[in-house]
């Protein structure tokens, strides 16, 4: 997994790339959670994420919950087909903010 972060106004957009599994969840959290903790609105761009398993989904859930707790928001952008399939299998499409 690789990533890139772009800042615009008070929104941080994290472009994630590759496969997100148990092996890289700590790396993903290390990128995303500090942005939320800094009070920023976070967009996670998932167009280049080819594979995501339950560990990757756990990062999305944790990010979403942390944002609610701190009064900010995480939105999933340009979700790839394969990731959307997993989100829907987990029945999380009504819980997470999808755009």
């Amino acid at each position, binding site marked *: 997994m690789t990533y890139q972060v772009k800042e615009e106004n008070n929104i941080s957009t994290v472009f994630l790339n590759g496969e997100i*599994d148990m092996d890289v969840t700590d790396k993903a959290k290390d990128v995303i959670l500090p942005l939320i903790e800094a009070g920023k609105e976070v967009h996670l761009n998932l167009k280049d994420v080819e*594979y995501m398993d*339950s560990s990757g989904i*756990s990062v999305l*859930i944790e990010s979403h919950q942390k944002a609610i707790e701190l009064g900010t928001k995480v939105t999933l952008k340009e979700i790839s087909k394969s990731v959307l399939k997993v989100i829907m299998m*987990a029945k999380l499409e009504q819980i997470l903010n999808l755009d």
Partner: protein
Amino acid sequence: MNIKDQKEFPVDSASLKNVRNFARELFNKVSEFENYKEELVLALAEAAQNIVKHAYNGNPSGDVMRVEIQYENKVLTMELFDKGLPVIPENIKPRKLTDIKAGGLGTFFIGQIMDEVVFKTTKEDWVNHLILTKRF
């Protein structure tokens, strides 16, 4: 087309990508899997992840896990073997749909994708033996 292959992988989260690639390479040979390929890869990878995470508590031990994949007579069987802590099938509970948390999601995915999930403890030289089956 029928397929049959097996491979051993170090019990480590870094192996999960290799487990997926091993399965993808085999699944690419079977036209019936065309629309299910990534789901099947996910089910297998979640089972392998459970070995790393639960049977070994996330600690690489130097042990290996074995993955066997067979497709015959329109039945896909994916078997995983490990020598970690014995699995108590009664203790394995998929997450409830109303729970908004990650725990148990992998087991939930496996149950959604596969037709049958069976734990055995009888295979010699191994502690846990998981059999995932899907009929086409």
